[in-house]
């Protein structure tokens, strides 16, 4: 078993344990059905294998590139404006009451 989330020093990482794929799914607020765990794990490992090519590249002192915007980003004036009114924003709410979003009770 090799699980890189718990050991970042291991190159060529794979996720081979049911609990690990589930652990990643928990981070993403997704569930994986028992019947799908094997398939998801296999596909996940196929994708991680694709990334191994990068381990051969020397990137010492290379500045990470977050965004291709070379120029300064134009900012608009910091003034209040209404782009969409409250009713417009609420029209797609799955459940609402008095213009508030309704969710299951979180405090008993």
């Amino acid at each position, binding site marked *: 078993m090799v699980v890189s989330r718990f050991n970042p020093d291991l190159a060529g990482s794979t996720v081979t344990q049911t609990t690990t794929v589930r652990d990643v799914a928990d981070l993403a607020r*997704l*569930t994986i059905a028992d019947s799908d765990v094997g398939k998801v794990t296999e596909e996940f490992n196929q994708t991680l294998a694709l990334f191994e090519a990068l381990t051969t590249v020397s990137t010492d002192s290379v500045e990470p590139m977050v965004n291709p915007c070379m120029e300064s*980003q134009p900012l608009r004036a910091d003034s209040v404006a209404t782009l969409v009114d409250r009713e417009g924003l609420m029209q797609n709410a799955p459940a609402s009451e008095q213009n508030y979003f309704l969710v299951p009770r979180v405090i008993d």
Partner: protein
Amino acid sequence: MTTSFETVAGLRSKLAAGDVSSVELTRDAFKRISDLNPELNAVISSNEERAINAATRADEARREGHGSPLLGIPMLHKDIFCTQGLPTTCASKMLADFVAPYDATVVTRLAQAGMVTLGKCNMDEFAMGSSNETSHFGACKNPWDTSRVPGGSSGGSASAVAAGLAPLATGTDTGGSIRQPAALCGITGLKPTYGRVSRYGMIAFASSMDQAGPMARTAEDCALVLEAMAGADPLDSTCADQPVPYYASHLTDTIEGMRVGVPKEFFSSDLNADVAAAIQASLAELEHMGAKLVEVSLPSTSLGVSTYYIIAPAEASANLSRYDGVRYGYRCENPTDLQDLYLRSRSEGFGDEVKRRILVGAFTLSAASYDQYFMKAQQVRRLIAQEYEDVLSQVDVIAGPSAPNTAFVLNDTSKSITDMYMEDVFTIGANLAGLPAMSVPAGLVGGLPVGMQLIGRRFGEVDILKLAHQFQLRTTWHSLTPSMEDSH
């Protein structure tokens, strides 16, 4: 009058001459959509009454003397652009009932130019895919062979334009999603420089690479429409404050002596031999036109796929965290508590490919994996961007294939997930580096279209558009149309 395969520029002339009205064009387009779309599934929502009203207003404006170049011309939007009053689904169950309360800037600008929106195009769910098979509303078909994919993610837009449902459709391109389907469907598609077109109201996939662009029959049409789409937007701080050239007025500028770099890595074993031959013939045509071909090297081409498939899912995982079943989008039935609401709404609302990428993104962004994967990919991204910059300091334009193969068959079970990701091997570099790039019809292989890719310098759209336009003046590949009507 048959106008199904007319260009934007051709329709503009016919409208100006009074040979046809916008209402007639719009009615004809809906007739064709009604005839062909049941088989193609390229258009997933439309509103004829609304379109006829817009066309009527355009005809009235023309009678009053208004003459915007795009006035009254029908078009389709990829269903990733927010459209007030029309569904905006991103081809996902998650947004199946979503109606945006505002228009995307691209939608606003094309409407202000007088274009008539017919409806919205199918796509891969949340733009994640290269075949348009991940759509919640079913796969879209390629009009050249309906047993084959149109490419993706803007597959519906490409299929619709190729089938003559509209002369123009918008697309978005994060790793090749305009260029690859344009190539597979035999149309012309342009991904502008990152920051050339506003992303406001365009549903986010990978924000550092997403860019909107036109998909049409010709480079001239792309130039006309890009002029209307492009330019600074106070609602998108990544949209560059750079003047927008009159692209169409530069199309006939000389290309004599233009240096066209041909990366040797683009002709690797990943490329189908027949596609390679078609591209080589098109490159020879560029040379006959007066361009100078120069062999160049982009040694990190193959690393682009690994880099992209770390960065894009990571950004997607963050962007798609907003779909939690609370404010908009799908909500599961009878949640027991808030955690259950999040988990089931997301698990039931997203399709398999989207969930796969969210999982990969959550993994590479997690604390223990961040440096090994996400940081590393961002460093390699800089190296790749630097390679492109170095090459583009020696040549004016880079040319090569848009996609390694022609359109593949639907439901191809022999293709693994990573095989599918390799479809993007030649297009991803321009997204990582933020460069403008387009696909131009460049031949047929086995009766299926092939696309030649042209990549320019940052904000160098004029260079690739004029090269593409003059190539299209000397070739007829862009004029070929599929023979779907034989069966109707």
